[in-house]
């Protein structure tokens, strides 16, 4: 194993096609005989379906079929959960198409197949839908009072309560010198990808084979679901990953369309393509966040944290989707973050409402819970009169305490621990780079009409979800290497980063790694995909194993021809040689291939610290970021350029969540933010002053690369750090933000409330 390319800022090989318009995304595919699918979606948030009449639509020239639940004998298949598939969630899982009831605006009712998407959209307007409206449940209170039930058979709108526990919280609180309780809220927003979702399916009746294009994130898992639903053996289905225009946790989970499009292609015997438009995307792709906390902290008088307890609530929307429980679970389990909190008792209640179902979004649950925790910490430090940096430093888990047990989650009995690290390193580095001491004098100061505020926060970022990943290395006829991975690419640069790992593992120049194939189900025997910052940790470690097995196989094959012991074979860049100096060209062994795997059930924990300097205009509520420093230690850096790119990109998404992005519903369950004019995303002029520093100080002890997950660290602390900076700028008013996003109207309202409160108090 060399260390030549790992750690180097290698320019990406993917860029050569993307920059010239030669990427191939699923929407770019147009096989002969293609039909276009368009989805009719419910305009009602909650109701009983009385009738769907497509007769008029079918008369439109160019319309080939309209598929509804009635076309599925035995009823529409149900989409099972991928993560935390607990029995309690079963009643709340989503059918691939609505049959009896609709439960959110955007739920599929029918699928139109037409010669073009435009004709299909014409047909949507000709389908008559009769829905008996039911009262919509649009918030937690409505869900909890149960006046209107989404699932009558379940008897409740509460899907489950998780509990995160550690130590004896009751005892910790009973003896505490100081307590504080706060209610905090993070708004519904989501992992909007610039490329909308898309699926293209081809059914080969003669071979009995189904090919599904547009696969992403977890193709092998989705193939298992589809095979069971559609009644085919798994190996009769190929899931093909094309170029993918962003994942962020939201793309690539099994959605209704992932069944409907293959089903339609098989029905009509022609290729069928569906490309989501942006309006659908905003109401159909997994929403996320949408969580509340009512939490209490117990401390000793010197600021040592003794315990954390309380309740959290997560709005699941209308169904439990494949990974819908992850955010709620993480809010409870990771509320302690990188801090030593000996006693924890946090409940997480998952409520169902008539809104788009939720799934994960980069840093799921962690963005929310870091906002809850760090906001609370600043209020506590202020009240106790302890410096906010010192309060955090004192309570960070120390390196000698590793591995450090996190709270246990029930049900699921999931135990987890922080693997390694010295959390003080990233905090110190962040403060130094930021110039905390010099800037401290600006805290709360009014300069030229704007109030200045500083804040910092520490975080952990889980990565490396198991149980396994696969990789294969193959020698091509001209001596080049092809790498095949069970990991998926969602735009993060998998081809470049894995070429770096392969070149070093095989001790070859990087140019010899001709291609890195990933994501599609045909490449390796079993793959687990791209989520939970796992690609480098799991796929990279599997690739090391494959490379080692490849080199062993090469030695064995050469030994046979050279008549020597395999251990005596030396592998060069172009040939293999025996102890007597006789050499054979590498190309003699073309076709040689080895598959490797990495098994691991533990998680890696990247850690870091962020600091922000903001100014607030009290007249408009506008917040500007003057400086922002993000520091994280990822154990081992494969490519610092792509890593920094992940940090800054992730951070700007976090700032979108802190300031702009908000999926707003009215009291009837209608989505009010159904376009990019209403759902505000960060643009190039919003956040120009951001800095990222990446470190590889403390390798993870639980994988051979020493790597930890990366890519989510930028987003996780952003909401908490920004809200604290805004709070600290407004100390003159005593304004305390307790809810995101901090849009100008909300900041302005916060100031008005504080001013009125102060006036009334006097």
């Amino acid at each position, binding site marked *: 194993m060399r260390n030549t390319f790992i750690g180097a800022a290698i320019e990406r090989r993917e860029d*050569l096609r993307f*920059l010239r318009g030669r990427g191939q995304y699923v*929407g770019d595919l147009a096989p002969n005989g293609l039909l276009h699918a368009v989805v009719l979606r419910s305009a009602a948030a909650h109701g009983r379906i009385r009738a769907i009449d497509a007769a008029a639509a079918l008369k439109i020239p160019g319309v080939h079929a309209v598929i509804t639940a009635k076309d599925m004998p035995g009823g529409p298949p149900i989409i099972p959960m991928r993560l935390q598939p607990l029995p309690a969630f079963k009643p709340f899982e989503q059918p691939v198409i609505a049959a009896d009831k609709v439960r959110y605006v955007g739920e599929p009712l029918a699928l139109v197949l037409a010669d073009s998407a435009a004709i299909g959209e014409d047909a949507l307007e000709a389908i008559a839908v009769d829905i008996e409206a039911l009262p919509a449940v649009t918030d937690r209170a409505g869900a909890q009072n149960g006046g209107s039930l989404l699932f009558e058979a379940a008897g409740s709108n509460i899907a489950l309560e998780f509990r995160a526990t550690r130590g004896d919280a009751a005892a910790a609180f009973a003896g505490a010198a100081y307590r504080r309780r706060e209610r905090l809220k993070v708004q519904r927003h989501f992992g909007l*990808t610039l490329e909308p979702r898309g699926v293209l399916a081809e059914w080969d009746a003669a071979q009995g084979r189904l090919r599904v294009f547009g696969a992403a994130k977890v193709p092998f898992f989705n193939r298992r679901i589809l095979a069971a639903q559609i009644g085919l053996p798994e190996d009769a289905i190929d899931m093909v990953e094309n170029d993918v225009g962003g994942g962020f946790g939201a793309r690539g989970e099994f959605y209704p369309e992932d069944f409907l499009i293959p089903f339609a292609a098989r029905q009509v015997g022609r290729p069928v393509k569906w490309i989501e438009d942006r309006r659908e995307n905003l109401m159909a792709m997994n929403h996320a966040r949408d969580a509340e906390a009512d939490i209490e902290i117990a401390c000793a008088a010197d600021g040592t944290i003794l315990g954390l307890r309380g309740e959290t609530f997560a709005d699941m929307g209308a169904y439990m989707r494949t990974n819908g429980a992850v955010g709620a679970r993480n809010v409870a389990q990771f509320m302690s973050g990188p801090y030593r909190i000996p006693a924890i008792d946090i409940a997480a209640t998952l409520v169902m409402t008539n809104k788009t179902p939720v799934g994960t979004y980069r840093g799921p649950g962690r963005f929310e819970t870091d906002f809850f925790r760090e906001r609370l910490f600043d209020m506590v430090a202020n009240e106790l009169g302890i410096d906010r940096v010192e309060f955090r430093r004192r309570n960070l888990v120390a390196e000698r305490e590793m591995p450090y047990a996190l709270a246990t989650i029930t049900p699921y009995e999931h135990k987890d621990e922080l693997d390694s690290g010295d959390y003080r390193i990233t905090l110190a580095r962040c403060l130094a780079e930021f110039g905390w001491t010099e800037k401290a004098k600006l805290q709360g100061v009014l300069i030229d009409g704007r109030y200045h505020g500083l804040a910092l926060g520490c975080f952990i970022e889980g990565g490396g979800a198991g149980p396994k990943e696969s990789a294969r290395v193959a020698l091509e006829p001209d001596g080049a290497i092809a790498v095949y991975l069970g990991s998926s690419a969602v735009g993060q640069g998998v081809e470049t980063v894995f070429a770096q790992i392969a070149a070093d593992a095989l001790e070859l120049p990087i140019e010899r790694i001709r291609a890195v194939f990933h994501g599609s189900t045909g490449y390796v025997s079993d793959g687990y995909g791209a989520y939970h910052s796992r690609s480098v940790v799991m796929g990279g470690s599997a690739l090391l194993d494959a490379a080692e097995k490849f080199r062993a196989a090469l030695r064995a094959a050469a030994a046979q021809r050279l008549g020597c012991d395999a251990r005596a074979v030396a592998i060069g860049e172009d040939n293999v040689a025996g102890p007597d100096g006789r050499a054979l060209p590498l190309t003699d062994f073309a076709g040689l291939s080895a598959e490797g795997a990495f098994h691991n059930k533990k998680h890696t924990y990247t850690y870091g610290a962020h600091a922000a300097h903001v100014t607030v205009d009290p007249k408009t509520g506008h917040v500007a970021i003057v400086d922002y420093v993000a520091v994280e230690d990822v154990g081992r850096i494969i490519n610092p350029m792509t890593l920094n790119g992940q940090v800054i990109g992730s951070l700007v998404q976090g700032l979108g969540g802190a300031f702009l992005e908000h999926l707003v519903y009215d009291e009837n369950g209608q989505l009010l933010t159904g376009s990019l004019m209403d759902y505000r995303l960060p643009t*190039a002029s919003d956040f120009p002053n951001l800095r990222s520093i990446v470190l590889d100080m403390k390798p993870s002890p639980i994988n051979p690369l020493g790597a930890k997950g990366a890519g989510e660290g930028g987003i996780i602390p952003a909401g908490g750090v920004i809200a604290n900076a805004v709070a600290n700028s407004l100390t003159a008013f005593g304004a305390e933000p307790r809810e995101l996003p901090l849009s100008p109207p909300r900041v302005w309202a916060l100031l008005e409330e504080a001013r009125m409160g102060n006036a009334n108090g006097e």
Partner: protein
Amino acid sequence: MTRFEANGRAVEVAVEPRMTLADCLRDVLRLTGTHIGCEHGVCGACTVLVDGEAVRACLMLAVQAEGRRVTTVEGLSHDDTLTPLQQAFRKHHALQCGFCTPGMITTAHALLSEEPDCDADRVREVLSGNICRCTGYIPIIEAVLEARSAYRGDGRAGDDGERR
């Protein structure tokens, strides 16, 4: 029949009046480098050059292209090498998933062709009409600023078939 020039080639297409230029480029002419991200003119992924000016192809009908000169990202590319603007994007890691990239390249090319001396604020202002979800924009701004020198004087970098 609608006749226009696409990447230096005369084309003639029979399209419905309601078809957008973006759909025409992608579905009829199979120039799939132009991406569709929102179809309501906000995201900028479909930006192309019409007579050298950056235009959202989702907000223009194909029939409106009659007699115009349309350049897509494919038309700004060379077969074997990257243009200085593309090289700067690669060097600064100004793209990740690549979906916004064609619109960023066309928009930046139009800007630098007109204003090769623009400053960072101007670059941010112009590119604020293009959404990127991956990079956080900072490397894109750096790349465009670096590419300015290639657009000054005779060193005209991008090739949109026009010599001004």
